[in-house]
């Protein structure tokens, strides 16, 4: 198929960017979206232009590196997948596709479609861990039984890949689904209880500091999340924070 692409081009963090139109032809419907971008870039390199910079790595939907706001949606129109798993069969011949970077004050553009997501790193560093040393001399793994239900729920929360689609699709650029998922994973497990109070307080404080917006429960994040992380994780985080604030002012 033949397509028109409208792509955000921005030379560097300080430069002004703009939407630029490109044409690609002979795109197979079996291609992934990023392979289509590869075709465009090969075309650009061959004609002496600079290729479009975009983040990507594993190309199997797990590293969380790829982003892209495609036709107004994070990771494009399909559900439960990342951009690298989006296939061209979701589009029609002759279609115009708009491709933009994640937009959020806390995710500044580095170049073209690449954004800086280190705000997420700092939130994790504020408390997204259990303070256990790495000696291996902890207790036996089976010493604390954990109900299958709790383990499965913790796993569902832990499935977050940190791609930032929640922030990108939220009208408020809120990062609460991301933070909620991490807080929930530990809140659901006995290992996480010891530091629960400080964890939720510190992570939320860091989230606020980074300039993400506030959650208004539109649920857009849950719909666009490639790992289908549930909104319940935000509810759980809210509860954890109240609990923590009551325990420790």
């Amino acid at each position, binding site marked *: 198929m033949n397509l028109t692409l409208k792509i955000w081009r921005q030379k560097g963090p300080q430069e002004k960017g703009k939407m630029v139109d490109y044409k690609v032809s002979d795109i197979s419907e*079996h291609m992934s979206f990023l*392979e289509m971008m590869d075709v465009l870039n090969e075309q650009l390199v061959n004609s002496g232009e600079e290729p479009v910079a975009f983040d990507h790595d594993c190309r199997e939907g797990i590293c969380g590196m790829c982003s892209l706001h495609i036709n107004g949606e994070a990771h494009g129109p399909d559900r439960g997948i990342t951009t690298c798993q989006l296939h061209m069969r979701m589009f029609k011949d002759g279609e115009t596709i708009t491709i933009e970077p994640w937009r959020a004050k806390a995710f500044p553009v580095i170049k073209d479609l690449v954004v800086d997501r280190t705000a997420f790193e700092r939130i994790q560093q504020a408390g997204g861990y259990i303070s256990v040393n*790495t000696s291996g001399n*902890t207790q036996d793994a089976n010493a604390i039984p954990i109900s299958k239900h709790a383990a499965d729920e913790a796993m569902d929360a832990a*499935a977050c890949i940190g791609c930032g689609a929640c922030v990108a699709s939220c009208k408020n650029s809120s990062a609460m689904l991301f933070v909620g998922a991490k807080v929930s994973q530990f809140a659901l497990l006995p290992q996480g209880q010891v530091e629960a109070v400080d964890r939720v307080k510190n992570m939320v404080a860091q989230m606020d500091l980074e300039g993400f917006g506030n959650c208004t429960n539109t649920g857009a994040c849950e719909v666009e999340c490639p790992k289908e992380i549930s909104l319940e994780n935000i509810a759980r985080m809210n509860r954890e924070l109240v609990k923590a604030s009551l325990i420790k002012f």
Partner: protein
Amino acid sequence: MSVLDSKVPKGPIKDKWTTYKDKINLVNPANKRHIDVIVVGTGLAGGSAAASLAELGYNVKAFAYQDSPRRAHSIAAQGGINAAKNYMGDGDSTYRLFYDTVKGGDYRSREANVYRLAEVSANIIDQCVAQGVPFARDYGGLLDNRSFGGVLVSRTFYAKGQTGQQLLLGCYSAMNRQIARGKIEMYNRHEMLDVVKVDGKARGIIARNLITGEIERHSAHAVVIATGGYGNVYFLSTNAMGSNATAAWKIHKKGAFFANPCFTQIHPTCIPRSGDYQSKLTLMSESLRNDGRIWVPKNMDDVKGIQEGTLKPTQLKEEDRDYFLERRYPAFGNLVPRDVASRAAKERCDAGHGVNATGEAVYLDFAAAIERYGTEQAKIHGVSNPTKEKIIELGEAVIEEKYGNLFQMYEKIIDENPYKTPMMIYPATHYTMGGVWVDYNLMTTVPGLYCIGEANFSDHGANRLGASALMQGLADGYFVLPYTIGDYLADDIRTGPISTSTKEFDEVEKEVKDRIDFFMNNKGTKSVDHFHKRLGKVMWDKVGMARNEKGLKEAMAEIKEIREEFWKDVKVPGSHNEMNLELEKAGRVADFLELGELFAKDALVREESCGGHFREESVELEGEQKGEAKRKDKEFAFVSAWEYKGEPADAVLHKEQLEFKDIELKQRSYK
């Protein structure tokens, strides 16, 4: 006497590691504060090493080319991690894990290293559970296990189909804790471009800031390379797009020997290629072989019908299907090791029985498992006289619970429902057992330069068993390197900070800058990918699943040719002082173009078939094992460690003879 000293401690294999640890030199906590360690790569091996070294008190500088350590390709491992916990009570033990790993590796790994790996494996699970890794559990709340290829016990711990992700997030969280404490300085979006040696010892690296393009100098008392494997030398592989061999290759050029490059694992269950535009291949976890049956049609008429789309696989009668793994290997069936399964699939496809348009695919069928689970569930739920539909419905629910995310992934890529029609799979490059040569301490042939995880060669011999890569990465990083590096650093407590304003740093930085300038100024006409794809094709066709002398010689010549053309005609747009993804790729492909040739050379020298390395000249000609790979222990029970001498073709071979004292050398039989 060989220049290689493996430094394996004396004594019985069971006590080696414990006794060694007891006698090793330690650095006192106050002195650790004055010692810097660089860790390049932050996957399972690098991440766990960085966290542990920081925990011990060293100042760690960690480098990742992605924007976060959490994105390293360890994250893509699906199936699980092995550990000799024997929670299932099925006869597992440290010895058995050790034995399985050595046998699975076709007797080309170092016994002492493998034993140590098996020994610390149980600690990994304890460690990860303490960190909050949500492993799968049974209804009693205890940890669940499953079985993987090449073994007869269930010792694989898993977290849905995302075990690698959860383990990596565990070690990422351990890193985060140390970053928050200021003990790890994290350099995201940085790529190591060379190592700096001072007085023969590794004392730092040159790295490029991938956002600004700045070339930076970083010094340390020791350097740890944990940058993963070189599978992308094939262009198409299950590796991430950015996975590269640059760090490993650069240290090879600076004196670290490169071992067994030809030992590469071709994974049997990957989604087949669909066209020339393909950028990478997607793995379907080996765990699927627990329940899936692999087959191709027996009759060529059926093959034709399927290839042309006039016949559906589900229409084929049981007797018209060739379950070739069950036929050839009745004892292990669909759970033979990866190399064996891959070759068997290739053999069927080469014989014309492939089931997709390109003729390069076999079926992985879940119909039998769905029916089996469905019947079982019907019994559990007390459904009397269930209809076939009901059984299938119940069975599909079980399969979904076990492999839901993999099935969804498959459906998104191929656009077919794998619950209703068998999956199509084909082997693809997945893991590299070969890598930088290291001794028992995981130190390379350059003092102070360590190599851990997939980047080294040590534990998997000629073939890696499923769920062992995660085990090795974490064992190296959490439990081995933190001890062994102390032994080396104990001599460095009086060295003081390492200056980066020395002629050694000047020289290496100049080399790096010159190469970047070359790329930026070369007025070529072809893109980096053009050369990478050509290299990949030569590698796959001639240094792939089956190799022969003629093909390997041709491959060496062809790779050399492509390399020469690359240096004349490569085109890199943009500039060096900004984010430039083409420039990054150019550097990596340049290194692959050298590594590929050494790879072929190594395969040429190893005139035997073992593990993932299959020489067509070396097969069993008669007996029960007729047609199977033939290992030649008398001549080839060694590790080939290559020393760099300029051109890859001029590399000098050093042999580390392998001794098997605790395991009897015999032919692998999965029949």
